[in-house]
């Protein structure tokens, strides 16, 4: 198989070669695509002719790799028969070389028709709506929970349990933020070695027992 450099080297031979190569590829690309898409859509030549408002003879010629006299009108009608669009555009030779190397039958066969695209867009829209609804529901629950905690704390109450650790806290008068001081070191049944690694501990004035303090400091060394 030719590499990009092989193709580029040949295109560098002369302007005449480049022109003929590009023209020849252009002549063959359209019939190649028509044949590939017709096969993918499982249409016979007469069936495609009917959908395109053309004759079977025109479709047969349009699939001939060497015919080379297809009009834009015929290509446009065949595209309409496939329920696809066709665009022709000018490109640099590097793109032509890359295209000649990388084009594939499966790529053209996978082009969705307008109806398939509409169905895909509908599915995508439903999927996004489901994601949005889930995110919104979770935000509402979190907001309600936050308001509940804030209300409890402002009434001088104790915040509900977070996980297995009952916490007490207060609302900052200036910022309104909830402050929940954590013990300097875990105590009693809340001292689960290895679990506290991620918690940033704040001085609360409570001192752990001597035994637990010893265990905790050895753990701290291990995770330092």
């Amino acid at each position, binding site marked *: *198989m*030719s590499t990009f450099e*092989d193709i580029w080297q*040949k295109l560098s*031979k*002369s302007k*005449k*070669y*480049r*022109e*003929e*190569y590009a023209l*020849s*590829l252009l002549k*063959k*690309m359209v*019939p*190649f695509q028509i*044949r*590939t898409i*017709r*096969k993918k859509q499982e249409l*016979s030549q007469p069936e495609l002719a009917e959908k395109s408002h053309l004759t079977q003879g025109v479709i047969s010629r349009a*699939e*001939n*790799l*060497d015919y*080379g006299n297809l009009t834009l009108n015929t290509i446009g009608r065949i595209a309409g028969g496939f329920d696809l669009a066709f665009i022709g555009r000018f490109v640099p030779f590097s793109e032509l070389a890359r295209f*000649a*190397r990388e*084009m*594939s*039958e499966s790529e053209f066969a996978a082009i969705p028709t307008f109806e398939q695209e509409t169905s895909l867009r509908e599915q995508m829209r439903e999927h996004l709506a489901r994601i949005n609804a889930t995110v919104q529901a979770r935000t509402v629950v979190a907001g309600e929970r936050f308001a509940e905690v804030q209300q409890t704390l402002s009434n001088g109450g104790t915040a509900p349990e977070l996980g297995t650790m009952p916490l007490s806290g207060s609302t900052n008068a200036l910022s309104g933020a909830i402050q929940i001081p954590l013990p300097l070191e875990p105590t009693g049944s809340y001292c689960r070695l290895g679990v506290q690694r991620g918690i940033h501990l704040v001085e609360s004035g409570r001192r752990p027992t001597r035994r637990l303090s010893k265990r905790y400091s050895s753990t701290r060394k291990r995770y330092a």
Partner: protein
Amino acid sequence: MAHWRFLDYHTEDDTNPFNQWYVLQGEEVQAAFDATLPILGEIETWDDPNYPVSAFKALTRNPRHVGLSELIFEVTINNRKRQYRAIGIWRKDQWDFILLTGFEKSGRSTNPPNAFEVAIRLRNQFNQGRGTLHEHV
């Protein structure tokens, strides 16, 4: 990834008969042939009667030519369409085409006139296990 590979046959003295023909052709012919291969390489089925490939023909009519196939391409030179063909061995089961030689077809005659004799001789040599195959570039 292309479905088909194109290979050059080298004779025992390491000459490449297809390339010998190719370099003698004008740049228009070379360009048209070079543009035909990537397209054909991408077409999975060359012999499906419902989806014919105009650029390929397996020779079946003349018993001497059985086992040979042609890659067909046209070039317009001075406003005149001319048809060229590369002759080779199509190995469907191995997904490759071995290029042996080429010719210009004009009606019932060929240029060079002995193109088929050369192709038959090379095919026989290949079938006898003589020569080597190389990736066509």
